[in-house]
């Protein structure tokens, strides 16, 4: 995208019907380190790549527990992500207090989206620069949603956001048909493998990634490093045998529906938030 005379204000439309400030906010999401999510009928797994400012500092927290039955992984401006997580926690706690019942994740996601939309229609505000993968349960089972700075939200079987997320998306596109009935452990394994794709050559170890799980009968929690390292070790051995199969699999992959491209075409084409 290039600078133009319509991109100063979030409340200025371009002649092509685009709000450039909102699209720039979505660029900020693409700059953040990767986060992925995938779900079965009963469980959802969130994973993210840990990015640290320097070797001396600790990595940024990108996965937040919102309630026992809801968790969120973010990519983009972590500060914005923290503020939105606080909002989500507040909404969940207030609902629980009034109704003694967990807030259905579908309703939380809509409230979050409406909150983001407000920032696209006030001249004194700016859009939130963070994309959220919201994982949660409600009466109809497990759900995974992606909330966009534009105020849009989508439900997914599996999705990836942030830098080099396309590699993870390609992997997930190959495997997603198996996810609905997958066991919890297979789901976690697939999450770790999807993260490995985004690392593109770097060694996969538990210090580089964070994994969290939520499911029916399993409250949201982040897996500890030792467990994650064990799983990595377990399938690294199997992974070498799988490599020749994977190469054959890529040619045969069909085009799946549940993952529309987010802002892939730069400059030309449909504005990303219209999808």
């Amino acid at each position, binding site marked *: 995208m290039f600078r133009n005379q319509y991109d100063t204000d979030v409340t200025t439309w371009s002649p092509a019907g685009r709000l450039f400030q909102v699209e720039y906010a979505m660029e900020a999401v693409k700059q953040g380190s990767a986060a992925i999510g995938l779900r079965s009928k009963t469980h959802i797994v969130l994973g993210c790549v840990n990015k640290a400012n320097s070797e001396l500092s600790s990595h940024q927290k990108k996965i937040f527990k919102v309630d026992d039955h809801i968790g969120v992984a973010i990519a983009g401006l972590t500060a914005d992500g923290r503020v939105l997580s606080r909002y989500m926690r507040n909404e969940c706690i207030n609902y629980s207090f009034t*109704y003694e019942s967990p807030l259905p994740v*579908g309703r939380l996601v809509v409230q979050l989206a409406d909150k983001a939309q407000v920032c696209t229609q006030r001249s004194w505000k700016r859009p939130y620069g963070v994309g959220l993968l919201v994982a949660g349960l409600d009466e*109809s089972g497990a759900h995974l949603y992606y909330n966009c700075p534009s105020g849009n939200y989508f439900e997914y079987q599996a999705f990836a956001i942030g830098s080099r997320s396309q590699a993870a998306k390609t992997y997930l596109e190959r495997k997603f048909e198996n996810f609905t009935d997958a066991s919890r452990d297979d789901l976690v394994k697939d999450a770790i493998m999807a993260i490995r794709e985004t690392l593109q050559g770097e060694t996969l170890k538990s210090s580089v990634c964070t994994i969290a799980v939520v499911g029916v009968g399993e409250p949201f929690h982040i897996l500890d490093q030792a467990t994650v390292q064990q799983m990595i070790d377990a399938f690294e051995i199997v992974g070498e045998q799988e490599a020749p199969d994977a190469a054959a699999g890529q040619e045969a992959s069909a085009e799946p529906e549940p993952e529309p491209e987010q802002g892939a075409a730069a400059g030309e084409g449909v504005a990303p938030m219209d999808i």
Partner: protein
Amino acid sequence: MNFMASKQPENFLLGPESDSQRTLYPYVTGTSVVALKYKDGILMAADMGGSYGSTLRYKNVERMKPIGKHSLLGASGEISDFQEILRYLDDLILYDNMWDDGNSLGPKEVHNYLTRLMYNRRNKFNPLWNSLVLGGVKKGEKYLGTVSMIGVNFEDNHVATGFGNHLARPILRQEWHENLSFEDGVKLLEKCMRVLLYRDRSAINKLQIAKITEEGVTISQPYSLKTYWEFSAFANPAQGAVGTW
């Protein structure tokens, strides 16, 4: 006490001008509601009387109403406050339905909402003068709870309001058991309502019994209980205490 006569009380509701703004006494009241869990759901009974002090002014008041798909609400106390509560719940269920997302508020959620409502009004010294009974079934789970005008709430296998607590609950404690059949449940409720009819002066002999199961709510047509007044103690009440009236 206040030494400075001109000082305004901090809470407007506690000063002399405030009494017209808040509920001090109930005016048109309903008497007991009794309810119990049975095999398929909840059974609830209430008569149709609305008393204006000691006058039995209204004799066709429906004191039990269905709420949403899964709940049934019965109320005793101020009838106009009950109507206000129904309006609040109507809004609540409306907004719940507007989500149209496969999630719905069950009896537990409605009960807790009512608890918050009653307790917050009590804290403002402007109570909704009711004792409420909330029963329902959702996904096979039976739920029966009660909330008072000061916000006291609890769940149990059988609940009652007002005089029902003193006259009906001892009967229920003796005779209620898990998995009552519909007929046995109704017989048990009628036994309780009959005692209330004899002994509660604000009870009338025109009652409804409501049932809520997974399928939905049914509220019976009004009917009356058979009573027997020929007990010798009733025949000559002054016999043991000459001069009494």
